[in-house]
């Protein structure tokens, strides 16, 4: 089953109940006009697209005036094309070194640990050996949670006691991976709000320590974004990038009705690609990102917000 099908299926309950918003706009044979496009703009805001919604609709209005947009299909196709264009190339993490170190960062509750579990499973299925570093030594029982996942996915894990220096755990993890010839290292970190200076400094230290042990590492820095977050996701991406040079995004919780529309602005402003999307609690529910499918999901769910109230 493809990504879109799954997303669609998961969104299905909402969608079937309230129908497709874009279609709803044209209900009763309503012709396209500026008023309709204004309503579309609001719908796009409903997908957390933020100010990009206004940009897109301004562009649509121009095209409409030039007579390029006439039917619902025109509109849908143009919008999709623009959205896909905004997202750029897809591409999950490709292993460039052995061990290939992936540092996973994000705010509290964004789904880092679950994403690591899913990544571990993914790499394990591809036949790679995986070592997980449990560097979240702050949250109670975070390492326990990870250990359960490691067991389930057949990955090895390095952990220390709660309150241990996370950089030390990171060092030991990379050290062991290098010595024991692991293919992939996934370094989990404690959730931290991007505005917390001390914690961001701690993250930089983790990065430094990893680089010290292994030249060129971390090879990937994955920022995990909560798909239900709104415009604040952009601030998160900016500050995490400034601090640890994020290379890609994983967007989680996309099985809700929220759609992570903020990633468009993140792509546009910071140039960060979305690499993975998470669609559920179970370990197999992590997909490589596909711009087309994502745009489709955004478009179909944009409508669901229209009739939400």
């Amino acid at each position: 089953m493809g990504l879109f099908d799954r997303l669609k299926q998961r969104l299905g309950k909402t969608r079937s109940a309230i129908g497709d918003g874009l279609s709803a706009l044209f209900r009763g044979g309503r012709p396209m006009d500026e008023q309709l496009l204004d309503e579309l703009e609001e719908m796009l805001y409903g997908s957390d697209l933020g100010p990009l919604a206004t940009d897109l609709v301004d562009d649509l209005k121009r095209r409409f005036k030039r007579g390029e947009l006439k039917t619902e299909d025109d509109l849908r196709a143009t919008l999709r094309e623009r959205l896909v264009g905004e997202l750029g190339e897809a591409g999950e993490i490709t292993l460039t070194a052995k061990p290939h170190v992936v540092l996973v960062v994000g705010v509290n509750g964004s789904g880092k640990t679950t994403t690591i579990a899913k990544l571990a499973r993914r790499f394990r299925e591809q036949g790679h050996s995986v070592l997980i570093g449990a560097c979240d030594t702050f949250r109670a029982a975070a390492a326990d949670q990870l250990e359960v996942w490691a067991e389930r996915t057949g990955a090895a894990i390095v952990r220390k006691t709660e309150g241990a220096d996370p950089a030390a755990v990171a060092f030991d993890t990379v050290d062991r991976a290098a010595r024991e010839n692991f293919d992939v290292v996934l370094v989990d970190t404690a959730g931290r709000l991007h505005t917390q200076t001390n914690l961001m400094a701690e993250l930089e230290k983790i990065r430094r320590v990893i680089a010290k042990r292994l030249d060129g590492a971390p090879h990937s820095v994955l920022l995990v974004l909560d798909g239900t977050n709104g415009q604040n996701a952009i601030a998160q991406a900016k500050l995490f990038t400034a601090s640890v040079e994020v290379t890609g995004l994983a967007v989680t919780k996309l099985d809700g009705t929220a759609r992570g529309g903020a990633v468009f602005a993140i792509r546009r402003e910071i140039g960060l690609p979305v690499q993975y999307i998470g669609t559920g609690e179970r370990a197999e529910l992590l997909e490589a990102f596909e711009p087309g499918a994502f745009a489709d999901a955004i478009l179909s769910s944009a409508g669901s917000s229209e009739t939400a109230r």
Partner: protein
Amino acid sequence: MLDGLTAKLGGALGLFKGQRELTDANIEEGLAAVRQALLEADVHFKVARDFVESVRTRALGAGRIQDKSVSASDQFVHAVHRELVELMGPEDAKLVFASNGPTVILMAGLQGAGKTTTCAKLAKHLVTKLGKRPLLVAADIKRPAAVEQLRVLGRQLDLPVYHEDGLEPPVLCERGLKEAIRTGRDVVILDTAGRLHVDDELMEELAAIAKRTKPHNQVLVVDAMTGQDAVRSAESFHRKLALTGVVLTKLDGDARGGAALSLKAVTGRPILFAGVGEKIDDLDAFSAERMAGRILGMGDVVGLVETAQAKIDEGEAQAQFEKMVMGTFTIEDMLAQLRMIQNLGPMKKVLGMMPGMGDALKNVDMDDKHIKRIEALCTSMTVKERLQPDLLDMSRRRRIARGAGQDVADVNALLKSYKGMKQMMKQMNKMGLGAAMGGKAKRQALAGMSPTGELSGDFGGPGLMGRLGGAAKGLGGAAKGLGSLVGLGGGGGLPEGFDPSMLGGGGGAGGSGGARRPQPARDKSKEKAKRKQKQKNRKKR
């Protein structure tokens, strides 16, 4: 991106300039700006639309201020602010406690909203503030180690945590309640698994838990960073559970928290608490006024004044302020000011409360250590040097640097900043700030606190200004000085060539060795244009 309504309104309010009355015509642009700001703060678009309409009604209708001397822009801002505060109230929302038997509090929410952490914070709050004896029930059997997490938190709080393996959550919760009765606990907090509102099975489970335990409080825990989805998830939870209240978490970040407005509009239920940090103590009572300011990007004026009133010696503040405007400002005064502000609490928190500062702070690295470093430099000077900074020749500077364990460049940066501040005081004096302590001066002093310039002074509207009263006067002065000292006073009126960032936290001039982290590049030309615009605005006034 999120410039805040304060900045947004700048242009729109220009339209009202010189106009006494709000009219159907001139209000449009203002309303559009409000709507845009709300959307960017993640307020749900339908809620934003309704909100704008009620502002229109209030500003043009009977709800307006019945005072001819109030300008159109004040009228407008007042209407926005009051509408927002009213929408988000009431503030005195409390948990409901059972008249006999244990009070049951059911906590629900999406994954990662912060339920488990909030459970612990709430338990602590109940123990310390209300003298309750809570029992925590770990009913999240979905997430690996969630039970263990609550147990660890329970140990930290020295509170019992109930859990039995192998039980379905509804049964588990019911047994938890029995356990509480048996052991004489008077509150039961049920920590449930995170669930998506579209997950029927888990939503049913939640309903089953509610049916078996008959909670007195059914609380939804929501991440303040939530976007447009807040409305739909809250709606679903509300339908299933009949919520009694909401807790907003992660408010210590820079999210504008528009979700709060959406939640209130959709559920009609009060926001009970705000989660504001990593520690178990970090749970605040919710304030509609503060949240309104936050969403609008106004800062927490009321909170700042409350804190200031509690901590700042009024007479001292007044004396400082007068010194500043009279131009007899010395390093001794600067030091006193610094200490006064330090009494208020962590810098970031204090500055975050100032109008217009919220957004500015987002990209600023505010470090209390930095203030300590400045203090160290000041205290390495003799009193005579502090009173007569002109004495500071190279030799003295070297001695001071050595004494403070810093570089001469740091001393130079401090002096440069001091001179800049002094220069600025003079200019303020010329502008008539020192002449009168009347309303106008107060307002300007307040405006001075904000890097976004004069607008914030307008913002409170007459009502707010009245409440600010005397405290704002002293505080305005103190904050102005401090703002520039720590590199935040980038507002209008700074003399050319004065670079507040010389002492800016994190910016670290001249090898100060301060924490130096990459900061988003600031668009200089843009800033310059902004500054020019501000000067222009000021002239118009």
